[in-house]
């Protein structure tokens, strides 16, 4: 079993340039917390305002940009959740749409008048006004449990076997929704699902989140986008906390070398299960948003293709990078809508619908080309795994600066072990 391993301490071959992203990252890390807030808050505000600023070219023509952004918000949540599973823990999940479906159906089953389990309305315990909000945590919990149920027997499988089992799970969820017609309505779906009741006025009897709120620029889509933006930030905060903790480190360790992680004392199975459960919960959250926004769920929205698209969002954006996967989600949602109904682009007349017909062709080509030339995704992962690592990064940057200032001492790598040990 003995194998000679890599050879002795060698000098790194040259010193490549740090990319723009890395420079930005270094710069960002060097800022103080208040400075980070000072830059971050206006940026997030800008993102939030994008759907109502009506930026030419960016704004979609054939579909409502606010509503597209709302869908983007949901898919971004999905991507963040899937990123925990695929990007961080390295578990290939091809049936993630199943969790999205469980979340959506939980909300629909409990609040749609078409459902035999409807809990709203006369004589039931869910008040119409609070129904959606009350069911939201239920949906998240149930989805988390479904993740746990799927994960505990299957996470002992590895790699491709896990992939196909999850794919099977996703399909089974959809088929159940389809076949258990007496409960889920089958192909007829469940309509009039509850949504947040807020800001009812004479003009807007359904409230701000009602699909009927289309007056003006700030329509229901924008409200849903804002709601998902808030949820994204909360989820990012939690997921970020996890990433910079023992849990996140365990996930990355499992991804890198599961056996080594186990031997270093990481309870790998437990943390894989956590990843699955957390990912599922986030998927369920997004599903609940979906059910609320569209107010109508049918099984067709939860097919394998969507699972694959979610995965594409993650890989496209850069697995392991939270902002990257959000960017990936934006591309996945936005691009198909971009050409719809567009009759000219930068003054050049085009037939948008005709082009939109070919969207999956272009999408497929883009995926292939991107994977060949940028396999790590648009924003490759640079995870930070330590809660109190900031001071270190700052110190590292200080020294790096010093090095750049003093080129002569810049090349001190490859020092022999003896020197370093004795230092």
């Amino acid at each position, binding site marked *: 079993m003995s194998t000679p391993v890599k050879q002795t301490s060698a000098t790194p071959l040259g010193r490549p340039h740090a990319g723009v992203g890395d420079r930005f990252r270094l710069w960002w890390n060097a800022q103080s917390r208040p400075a980070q807030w000072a830059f971050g808050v206006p940026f997030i505000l800008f993102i939030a305002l994008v759907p109502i600023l009506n930026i030419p070219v960016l704004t979609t023509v*054939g579909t409502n940009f606010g*509503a597209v952004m709302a869908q983007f918000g949901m898919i971004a949540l999905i991507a963040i959740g899937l990123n925990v599973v695929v990007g961080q823990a390295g578990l290939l999940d091809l049936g993630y749409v199943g969790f999205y479906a469980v979340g959506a159906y939980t909300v629909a089953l409990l609040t749609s008048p078409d459902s035999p389990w409807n809990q709203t309305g006369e004589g039931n315990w869910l008040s119409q006004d609070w129904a959606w909000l009350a069911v939201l945590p239920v949906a998240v919990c149930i989805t988390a449990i479904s993740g746990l149920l799927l994960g505990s027997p299957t996470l002992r499988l590895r790699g491709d076997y896990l992939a196909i089992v999850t794919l099977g799970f996703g399909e089974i969820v959809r088929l159940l929704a389809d076949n258990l017609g007496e409960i889920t309505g089958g*192909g*007829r779906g469940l309509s009039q699902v509850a949504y947040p009741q807020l800001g009812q006025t004479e003009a807007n009897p359904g409230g701000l989140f009602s699909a*009927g709120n289309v007056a003006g620029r700030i329509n229901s889509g924008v409200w849903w986008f804002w709601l998902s933006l808030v949820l994204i930030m909360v989820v990012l905060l939690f997921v970020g906390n996890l990433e910079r903790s023992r849990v996140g480190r365990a996930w990355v360790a499992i991804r890198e070398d599961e056996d080594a992680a186990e031997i270093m004392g990481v309870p790998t199975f437990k943390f894989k299960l956590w990843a699955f459960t957390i990912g599922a919960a986030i998927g369920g959250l997004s599903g609940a948003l979906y059910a609320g926004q*569209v107010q109508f769920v049918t099984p067709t929205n939860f097919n394998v293709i969507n699972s694959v698209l979610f995965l594409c969002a993650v890989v496209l954006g850069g697995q392991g990078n939270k902002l990257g996967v959000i960017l990936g989600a934006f591309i996945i949602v936005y691009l198909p809508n971009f050409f719809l109904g567009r009759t000219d682009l930068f003054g050049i007349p085009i037939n948008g*619908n005709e082009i*939109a017909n070919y969207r999956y062709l272009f999408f497929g080509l883009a995926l292939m080309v991107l994977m060949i030339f940028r396999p790590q995704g648009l924003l490759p992962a640079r995870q930070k795994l330590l809660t109190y690592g900031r001071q270190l990064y700052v110190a590292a940057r200080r020294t790096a600066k010093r090095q750049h200032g003093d080129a002569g001492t810049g090349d001190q790598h490859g020092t022999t072990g003896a020197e370093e040990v004795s230092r």
Partner: protein
Amino acid sequence: MHRRSMRAALVLVAAATLTLAACGDKSAGGSGSGSESSSAATSGASGSSSSSAAPAGGDLAINPLVQIDIDGNEVEASTGTDAVSPAGDGSATCDGVSVAMAGALTGPNAALGLNILYGMQTALKEHNDANANCQVEIKQFDTEGDPQKATQVAPQIVSDASVIGLLGPAFSGETKATGTIFSQAGLLSLTASATNPDLTANGWTNFFRGLANDAVQGPAVAKYLTGSAGFSTVCVVKDNSDYGVGLAETITEGLGDAADPSCAADVKTGDKDFSATVQLIAGAEPDAIFYAGYYAEAAPFVAQLREGGVEAAFVSADGTNDPQFVDQAGSAAEGAYLSCPCGPAPEEFAATYESEHGQVPGVYSVEGYDLMTIILSGIDSGITDRAGLVEYVKNYQGQGLAREYQWDDNGELSSSLIWMYEVG
């Protein structure tokens, strides 16, 4: 070295192909039941929506058989010659008015949306050609038939101030998801194809259905089957679509005891192999099979039924009422009954339509034309706002190519009639 053998194989096949191709065209031999004499293709829903391939299944076509009411009784068809013309009297004036069309224009469900759109465009052309001072525009909105996409499209329609009326959405699912939006905006929503009965029960005052719904089609067809056609046991097979499930429910209810629950089966859209269902039905030996679903599954289904030795009559509805059904099922389609709330296309219309769009009218093309005509006549009468148009449609009464249009308080047609077609 396998490269060389591969090349050899290629050459061989190429040679064989040439030889055999030279043998000339093959012709389909009679299989089982020989095909009967040809009949002129004048049917409403006849014509290929996408394929220019040679007509198949012998000379089979979908021909209108009879118009029936909710009790399955025959009703005299309106002649359609006194139909309101979209051209009006040519003196209309209007400015910057447009009509929206929402439905699947791309993606797998696009054919249906395009049928409606082309029907609308035919009407629009007649109108705009005749009325130089009233150039109306159709704005197309693609929903892909996806409810979530429809919720993204709907605000766009509503916020376009020039749109005073909407023809659509095309499917029931997306209508459910967007109904509130249009209702709240007070925008006329006139559908040429969404047949789910529940849609008019939501209290939307802007929603009108230009054809009979499934609650009419179901009982009407059921009564026709048990009555005029005299079938005593029927197997109801449905797909998993919104449409199929709803239709099967009303049909089963209408059939009553005639519906045999032991051979009621479910299939999935996208399925192509129905051997298990065929076996189930063969075992039940019914008089007829009712299929609630679309032609893409109905065609292989009926073909496999016939191969499986099931000779019972095959009955289906508007989802199957498409030339593709006949093309793909071939002689197996012969004798199939297809109901449709859609009316047959008169010859003159069919000719115009074909010359404009390069294909013969499909399902709901006539409805697209008729409903567009109603909206245009409203515009011609001087209406320029949404509320006015809703009001106009609510009080409208007039003859169309397919039927007479007049709506009740819920937005359903006052007299909902169903057409039975037969493949022959």
